[in-house]
């Protein structure tokens, strides 16, 4: 028997299938993803910030938020990290980038992914545009990724 045969390394996969409630704000936010390919935020009545993704309370003021605002399909990369190794849990094959994207009209960043041809060319302030899936289920990944605007065919 080889040493490798005796090592006996085993692969075990543990799965956690969760079903949870979205809550009100996230439910409305994801419904707009699915039905309209729109990105909605909520405007804080106290500090005036437009918060994306939507949440029921302003995390700075703790104020109730109920004023819905549609924000842009385009935005600005505030910060990012490039993933260069594959992992089963990642939403895209490597390479891809996780990025904080501040959408036009929003005051907060949406954490999502950017697919680009050249990851070394991503700069702070890079302009990106939402790319939607054709089949949408009411999930954050209905928005498949953001793509650099200059790389898209016009």
């Amino acid at each position, binding site marked *: *028997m080889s040493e490798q*045969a*005796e*090592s*006996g*390394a*085993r*692969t*075990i*996969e*543990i*799965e*956690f*299938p*969760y*079903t*949870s*409630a*979205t809550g009100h704000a*996230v*439910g*409305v936010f*994801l*419904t707009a*993803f*699915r*039905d*309209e390919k729109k990105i909605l935020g909520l405007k804080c009545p106290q500090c005036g910030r437009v918060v994306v993704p939507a949440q029921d309370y302003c995390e700075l003021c703790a104020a109730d938020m109920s004023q819905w605002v549609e924000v842009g399909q385009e935005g600005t990369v505030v910060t990012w990290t490039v993933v260069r190794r594959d992992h*089963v*849990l990642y939403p895209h094959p490597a390479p891809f980038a996780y990025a904080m994207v501040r959408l036009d009209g929003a005051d907060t960043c949406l954490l999502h992914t950017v697919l680009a041809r050249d990851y070394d060319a991503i700069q702070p302030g890079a302009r990106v545009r939402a790319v939607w899936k054709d089949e949408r289920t*009411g*999930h954050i990944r209905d928005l498949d990724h953001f793509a650099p605007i200059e790389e898209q065919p016009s």
Partner: protein
Amino acid sequence: MSETEPVTILQRHLRLPYTLSPGAMQAKFMTAVREEGKIYGNRCTQCRRVIVPPDIACALCWADTEGWVEVADRGVVKTFTIMRVPFYGQQIEIPYCIAQIVPDGADGAIMHLLQEVAAEDVRIGMRVEAVWGAGTRTGSLADDIEYFRPTGEPDMPIDELIARGWGL
């Protein structure tokens, strides 16, 4: 807006894929299961119990172990539990019984599924035997033995079971 219902539910499927090294002792045990289809234990240098699966130390004495002792693929039900609750990914029809089985020649127990017996008919002291799978062996008893089933032999009396220290 479409006429579909609003989104109210999130489905998240988290997966944790592990690759584990079983360590030298467990690897030797698993290799013997895979290559020979046999179950081995080892012996505590202090209390002389035969520990199955083998371990580097006795869990009761904390003493070193020694030797390499073949035990049988049949034995006695030391204790058991009955699963009556359905859960995600369940492969076995409920109710079913999971038992700790002390192989003949051993003092330690292995845990496995009991079949060919109604769950409510399982008893402590019941004699059972392994039913090995027909497929390629992997070295894992959980995979290579499909289940244990009653042999029909007389039960081990509870007093004897307790006298052997299996009531622990």
